[in-house]
């Protein structure tokens, strides 16, 4: 039986990524690893994320060195059995360069993946639309002060069997900065208009934080447009929100201050790299961006209290819903997830902060994919698990 040799290549976090920097190796040469074990930290223009082993084996060779920036798909290391001869490893590395195209790991997609500006009423929204046309589309709604890059590890992973749309909310990212009254009702109205503009009758909605509150409001105001809800640490289910975070997240001017603010979002503080901080600051500096966030903050959570109580929306069971929360969430406490109707599965992740879609990307993606494939079946499975 020939020995198995696995190529470790520069991963692709989102379609916009063309190259990544190997920040550091976390596994040593000669170390045995299981599938899913962390091998290295990869830094992109958006985030530093861990590179998990695609298979079990021994890390035989680190082809790329720490600090090296390589195109997506480039060989960074080799995994093999302990008894694979070194000469085979060397031959593998030599041949890899010869016959593997640089985009070998790129996922096939129908669209280019470049975000486009779409006119929705008086708004210009930055929309990234990927995936195939089959199946009910899925729409990702980011949180307060976020943008489409919050779905860096989510959007393409869910696009295998349906259309997946991420967009910048008004006032955020590259969208126009008019946020009207800044209320959840207003923002949910914009999402409803966006769906109509994109000729989507009904969509699965994934909402994070404020985006979760928007998703719930959309279900309340436009129930016909919502096929199901996946909510990540959503707003609207409790009274308090971390007011210090909100004001510092809007007002911080320096990289030093913003880094400290962004670290509140995650459990693993090392995830917040210089480039992530820079990307957030760049969005904040655009004319009108800070004012837009101030309007939303004042309308939705003045003085650290949430204005909207959206628990009644979930009580009726108007759409199949599942909820995710990080146990160490410093922005919206995980206690918000208690006392919900029993039919709603709540997944709480250990050692996770306010961004489960980044810190627990694989788990979240798998759970969402399973859920939207057949929400009713997923719900009855969850009920069986709960009663077992």
């Amino acid at each position: 039986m020939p020995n198995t040799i696995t190529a470790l290549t520069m991963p692709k976090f989102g379609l916009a990524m063309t190259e990544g920097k190997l920040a550091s190796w976390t596994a040593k040469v000669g170390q045995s690893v299981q599938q899913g074990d962390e091998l290295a930290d990869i830094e992109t223009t958006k985030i530093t994320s861990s590179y998990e082993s695609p298979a079990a084996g021994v890390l035989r060779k680190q082809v790329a060195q720490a600090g090296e920036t390589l195109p997506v798909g480039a060989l960074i290391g080799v995994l093999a059995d302990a008894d694979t001869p070194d000469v085979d490893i060397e031959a593998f590395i030599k041949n890899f360069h010869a016959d593997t195209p640089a985009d070998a790991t790129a996922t096939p997609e129908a669209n280019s993946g470049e975000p486009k500006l779409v006119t929705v009423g008086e708004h210009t929204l930055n929309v990234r639309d990927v995936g195939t046309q089959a199946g009910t589309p899925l729409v990702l709604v980011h949180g307060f002060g976020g943008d489409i890059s919050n779905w860096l590890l989510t959007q393409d992973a869910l696009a295998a069997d349906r259309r997946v749309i991420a967009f910048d909310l008004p006032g955020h990212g590259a969208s126009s900065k008019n946020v009207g009254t800044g209320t959840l009702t207003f923002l949910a109205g914009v999402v409803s208009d966006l769906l109509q503009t994109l000729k989507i009758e009904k969509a699965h909605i994934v909402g994070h934080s404020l985006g979760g509150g928007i998703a719930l409001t959309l279900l309340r105001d436009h129930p016909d447009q919502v096929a199901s809800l996946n909510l990540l640490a959503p707003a609207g289910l409790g009274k308090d929100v971390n007011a210090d975070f909100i004001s510092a997240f809007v007002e911080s001017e320096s990289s030093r201050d913003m880094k400290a603010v962004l670290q509140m979002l995650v459990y693993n503080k090392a995830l917040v790299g210089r480039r992530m901080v820079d990307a957030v600051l760049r969005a904040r500096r655009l004319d009108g961006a800070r004012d837009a966030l101030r309007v939303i903050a004042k309308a939705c959570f003045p003085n650290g209290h949430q204005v909207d109580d959206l628990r009644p929306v979930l009580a009726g069971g108007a759409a199949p819903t599942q909820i995710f929360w990080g146990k160490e969430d410093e922005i919206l406490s995980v206690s918000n997830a208690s006392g919900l109707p029993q039919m709603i599965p709540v997944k709480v992740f250990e050692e996770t902060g306010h961004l489960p879609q980044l810190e627990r990307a694989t788990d979240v993606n798998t759970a969402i994919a399973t859920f939207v494939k057949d929400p009713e079946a997923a719900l009855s499975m969850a009920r069986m698990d709960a009663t077992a």
Partner: protein
Amino acid sequence: MAKKSFRQAINEALRQEMRRDPRVILMGEDIAGGRGGSAGITDAWGGVLGVTKGLWEEFGDDRVLDTPISEASYIGAAAGAAATGLRPVAELMFVDFVGCCLDQIMNQAAKFRYMFGGKATTPLVIRAMYGGGFSAAAQHSQALYPLFTHIPGLKVVIPSSPYEAKGLLIEAIRDNDPVIFLENKVMYDDEEDVPDEAYAIPFGEANVTREGDDVTIVAIGRMVNMANAAADELEKQGIGCTVIDPRTTSPLDEETILESVSETGRLVVVDEASPRCNMACDISALVAEKAFFSLKAPIRRVVPPHTPVPFSTPLEKLYMPDATKIAAAVRSITSSQKQKVA
């Protein structure tokens, strides 16, 4: 978001601010330039290196003013216009020409707020090219930002990339004090992603362009790119560098520099200005005074020799700080053995 050159980024900042605020006007030598005559040419030059190209066509004679070759008169006029309600952006072409109009800058524009009891504001921007490496010889190659940094009442901005240039110039135009905005003439064709929208980068907030544990490198303007290149090379050899771009030498973000040195314990300052009384001296003094007990090694300055910038290309190359010289300075304070050998 499109890739834009340093030149385009500056042009776009001027255009967007002129559209936003009718009080913003441009003055300078040949900033429209060369129009008229029998050939009917309009807007031929757009400045000596084409930075203001197309602005005269959009905004016309009232707002894009070609001036005589008389720095004393038009810089003085710009200072007066600023004090009386306009927001002029005056182009000094080469910063080396400041000798002809230093009184207007140093003793007039910089002092109005103070001499008139806080009742006058002077929202004036003076743009000028600086720097060596262009074979432009000693009278067109100086990096005179230390001269301006020395004068209270002026703000001094030195952008290190196209993104930085656009955001800092917009901030400069919106600022109510006289701002000296210095563009490195070697960088006009550098490109990077620059948002189409207007944005402002606040003054006095340093940018950290690399993160590492062993050495803090503070670099000014074009030297930031050199420092980044050195840091990337050193990282492969296991030496981690934090690179700090102060963005503005006045005001100076002391906190970011001191905090970083307190973590790394080592400082290298890279400055292409003449070595006596330059930013490298200023920042070294700051660290020696306020972070002395954090230092594990002597401070190193990577600066040119105290001589006019040579015209000869090989000599100019020898004169200018570069990535190799920066890396050597870093190694000299990170490897104690090497230090002994040296």
